[in-house]
């Protein structure tokens, strides 16, 4: 049992890594390595806590590790591995310190909130325009004229004017954009544009025009209907 708990812990760590690194991206966005390391670290803590619940389990988990570290009763390849670990550990710490201090030319990471909270006056507004085929058709016309250069004729954010903007225009077909939002939220974003975003939305980077300058509310509501119809999603509701 002595070595089996240590081995099981190691296998669990490897399995967690494989699932996070290669399994999850099959279903959702890939996780950043920093988050994967954090999960592995927490898993390690969990293994240690589990393994030290009783005296027997503590021996089963830690005995092989301590025998490895103390060098007692080991020989051959294990002895060589022990020396390698003891030499490499300080060197790795030194390398980590150096790489943490060396000036990086990588730009700082940006914690931009994709869907920040809207101002109170835009919460829960109902679309006053009837959802008729004629109005949707009109909305598609407005979308084509004003929105499609960036958001794309297929509502996928792949318009001909999208390439130079960082962040890129929203892809309405993606389930993570308008499918998660109410119509009132879209009304706010279209009417007030990028400059209407709060600080966590990084308004200084958004190319979204403040359409209230050029479009009536009626036109904006029709565009919203067109975006849902064109992307195949339905607006989120309170129900």
């Amino acid at each position, binding site marked *: 049992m002595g070595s089996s708990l240590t081995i099981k812990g190691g296998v669990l760590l490897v399995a967690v890594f494989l699932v996070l690194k290669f399994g999850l991206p099959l279903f959702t966005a890939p996780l*950043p390595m*920093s988050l994967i*390391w954090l999960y592995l*670290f927490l898993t390690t*803590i969990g293994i*240690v806590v589990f393994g*030290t619940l009783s*005296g027997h389990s503590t*021996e089963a988990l*830690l*005995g092989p*590790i*301590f025998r490895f*570290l*103390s*060098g007692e009763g080991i020989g051959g390849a294990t002895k060589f591995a022990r020396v390698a670990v*003891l030499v490499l*550990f*300080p060197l790795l*710490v*030194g390398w*980590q*310190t*150096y790489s*943490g*201090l060396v*000036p*990086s*030319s*990588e*730009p*700082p*990471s*940006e914690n931009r909130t994709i869907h920040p909270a809207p101002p109170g006056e835009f919460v829960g507004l109902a679309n006053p325009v009837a959802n008729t085929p004629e109005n949707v058709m009109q909305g598609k016309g407005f979308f084509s004229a004003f929105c499609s250069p*960036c958001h794309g*004729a*297929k509502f996928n954010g*792949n318009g*001909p*004017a*999208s*390439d*130079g*903007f*960082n962040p890129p225009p929203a892809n309405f077909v993606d389930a993570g954009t308008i499918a998660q939002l109410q119509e009132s939220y879209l009304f706010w974003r279209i009417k*007030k544009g*990028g*400059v*209407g*975003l*709060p*600080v966590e939305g*990084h*308004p*200084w980077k*958004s*190319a*979204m*025009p403040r359409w209230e300058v050029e479009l009536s509310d009626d036109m904006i509501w029709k565009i919203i209907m067109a975006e849902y119809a064109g992307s*195949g999603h339905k607006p989120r509701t309170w129900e």
Partner: protein
Amino acid sequence: MMMSHRHALLTVALVFSFGWLFVVPVFAEDVAVRVKLIQGEVPTDPLSADWNKAPSTEFPMSPQVHWQQRIGSVTVKSIKVRCLHNNKQIAFMLEYADPTQDPADAAALEFMVGEKKAHFAHGQPMAQVQGGPVNIWYWRNNTGAADMSAMGFGTLKKQAQQDIQAKGIWKDEKTKIKFKERKLSLRKDPKGELVKDPKTGDPVVDEETKVVEQEVTGVWRVVFTRTLTTTDKEDAQFQPGTFPNIAFAVWDGHKSDTGDLKESGSQKAVTSWWYFNAEPPADYSIYLYGLVAVVLAAGVEFVIIRKVQKGSPT
């Protein structure tokens, strides 16, 4: 023999020690202009061989769509940027394909001024964030350089103190540009009939997007130079090692058959904010800190192993 609690604590300490190695920075996904530090003068000539020392970063450009009088397509679809500094002066070179040399051809760099974030479209006011002004370095083929400021549309003005220099050279040479090409087509069935969406009844549109490499004759190389810092409060100030924002704009000043400029004013090719980073002078103290970390880690390791050996179960 059972493991002692001391051993358990030692193990936790070991886990934390190794765990510290797991803490790695979040890798930024953004692209930045890397400004290489050089000895001697920064090049002011767009054709200087010194530019070969600078790494090139390419940015796609979009038509200006943010404000009215927007434009549907632009001549310059991407721009290559190189930059060098010598700890006193900084020089940016913009390189882009433009088939014709025209008097109204122009290019510009934009920077935030001060600590406040500024919107990339001329620092226009933001509803919930108090933004700051922008500093625009403008160059036009027939008028030369202009050091400008803006804080909102309609506020663009030439500064009283002109701190920048700029020089542009157009060469009748071939260059390759890459850009995305999109084609939309109505889907048809084998009989040639339009396919309609069963839910909406709308014709189904297919989209094909591919990266096209095209050879273009005619290249502008425009160099902007300035000191890293100035005494002008309207100017952006740069410190090596930091990550200031930068945005780009280009105008194709070609005249159409009717005599109108193809691009002028707010009708231009633009980017939103990116970053640039001026390489700081070498700091050798980081090697010392790395060495100190090695010694400390070896010391901790030694203490842990001694403790394990003393209390080791047999």
